[in-house]
């Protein structure tokens, strides 16, 4: 039986440093970005913000500082979890989503013939692929080289990418490769945490709900595009918690988005979807629907803070809450920088 006692005690201490809604409200009332930065400089973000601002000037530097801070927080959680093999494995599964981001970025960089430095700057080395692995991948001259290297290292990502490569060669578009990688990630991650008991079930449920949320957002996006009917199933990720690919395809046949909400009324997704669509009708922006769905997902995960205190729930909830905190800060900073009204900034925030 895994012992999360020590790890959770440390996580609780880290959780106590998360910003309160009142603090964020104070930042929202700030006149401009410099006032926000000044307020952040009095918090535990100070050291990382200084590091970021040494690297880039202005807002870019502050954002870089926020990124450093989140990465160092995640690394800290990883270090703490090292003493507990199960917790460490669960973290590896969760953090491997950044492997997917990194792999896509490298493939995109090679596709666009971007410089190695340009690619390297967009990477977030927190997953299984560490900086040394990523640097080696970036050094490859083309996509084929990257795939060969992944296969040589025996990494599981090589399989979906190798299968999708002929399609890339034919179309010179990365869509198929990326789609295969996304599908693979959710399947692989779920398989990795199968049969490990309650803590793994918790992570699996999180992944499955995320699949549902992603699929529903994709469904709404596909409704605004002219997609041939037979192509629709290809865009859905398998392994959802409530919605199967078949059900999603059936939903895609419906004429109106309201009908989708009606069909989903017995699921927890109906509420945020309805709310998002209400805002969509006002703004004409699909991004608000996606944000409401993300908000729902984040809130579901952060709710784990109140779950079993001796399980992995606290660690998982902390990771999402910390990442959400960084996104909230970025929203406030960017919003202030472009003169977004306070209400619009508040709408984009996810307060947990």
């Amino acid at each position, binding site marked *: 039986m895994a012992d999360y006692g020590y790890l959770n005690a440390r996580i609780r201490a880290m959780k106590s440093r998360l910003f309160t809604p009142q603090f964020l409200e104070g930042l929202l009332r700030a006149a401009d970005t410099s006032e926000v930065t000044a307020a952040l400089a009095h918090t535990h973000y100070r050291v990382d913000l200084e590091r970021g601002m040494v690297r880039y000037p202005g807002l*870019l530097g502050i*954002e870089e500082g926020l*990124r450093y801070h989140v990465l160092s927080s995640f690394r800290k959680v990883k270090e703490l979890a090292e003493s507990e093999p199960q917790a460490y494995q669960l973290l590896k599964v969760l953090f491997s989503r950044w492997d*997917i*981001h990194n792999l*896509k*970025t490298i493939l*995109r*960089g090679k*596709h*666009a013939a*971007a410089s190695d430095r*340009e*690619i390297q*700057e*967009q*990477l*977030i080395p927190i997953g299984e692929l560490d900086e040394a692995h990523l640097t080696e991948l970036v050094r490859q001259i083309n996509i084929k080289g990257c795939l060969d290297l992944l296969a040589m290292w025996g990494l599981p990502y090589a399989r979906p990418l190798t299968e999708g490569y002929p399609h890339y060669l034919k179309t010179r*578009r*990365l*869509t*198929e490769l*990326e*789609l295969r*990688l*996304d*599908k693979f990630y959710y399947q692989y991650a779920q398989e990795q945490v199968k049969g490990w008991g309650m803590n793994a079930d918790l992570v699996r449920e999180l992944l499955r709900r995320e699949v549902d949320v*992603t699929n529903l*957002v*994709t469904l709404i*996006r*596909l409704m605004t*595009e*002219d*997609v041939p009917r037979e192509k629709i199933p290809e*865009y859905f*990720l398998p392994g959802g918690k409530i919605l199967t690919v078949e059900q999603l395809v059936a939903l895609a046949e419906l004429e109106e988005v309201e009908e989708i909400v009606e069909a989903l009324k017995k699921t927890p997704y109906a509420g945020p979807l309805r709310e998002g669509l209400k805002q969509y009708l006002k703004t004409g*922006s*699909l*991004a608000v*629907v*996606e*944000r409401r769905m993300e908000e729902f997902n984040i809130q579901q995960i952060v709710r784990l803070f109140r779950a079993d205190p001796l399980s992995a729930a606290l660690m998982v909830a902390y990771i999402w809450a910390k990442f959400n905190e960084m*996104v909230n800060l*970025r*929203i406030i*900073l*960017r*919003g202030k*920088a*472009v003169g*977004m009204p306070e209400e619009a900034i508040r709408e*984009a925030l996810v307060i947990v």
Partner: protein
Amino acid sequence: MEEVHATRTELLARKNQMALAKQGCELLKEKRDALLIEFMAIMNKVLEASRRLQEAARKSTYAMAVAKAVDGLATIRSAAMATKGEVTVEISGSYIMGVPVPEVKKKSVRRSALERGYSVTGVSSRIDEAAERYEQELDIILDMAATETKMRRLGEELQRTRRRVNALERVVIPALAEQVKYIQMALDERAREDLFRLKKVKKSLEAKKKAALQEG
């Protein structure tokens, strides 16, 4: 004033030149008015496109700010690398009132979310929206580029024509009128001198004739 020979031939030549200058001036005035009508029509189009461009730029900046805020710069730059594309424009020429102007035919740069090169499952609709807004902006810029060049060319031609009209109206025609007047005056003066001389000669001949009669 340039050196003018006060001769009847010169007077005729100057009068012809003046008639030609007046005719040219009238023609240029007609051209100027026609150019002005064309210019104003294109200017309205440019102003409308400029207003649309400002609106599109405002929306794209806003969409990009939202995407940068929620998804982060690294994710946006990563997605941007997947969406490399090209802008195809076909440039030909045509004439408006004899002024060569470019005609730009372009294929719209707007793409659907499924054509941008990344998978919709891995890139948020915020990034898609920012991309869409910038594609709209680029479309307006390309439209505007052709119309604005037309406007600039017509404006230059309008200015040139106005300068020519002014030169003819205020310099060439008054100068020719002055020369005609001068030659006319010189010729009249010469005619008066001739008449006076003839009268003098006649008077002297008559005096001689009278003296001869008296002697005889």
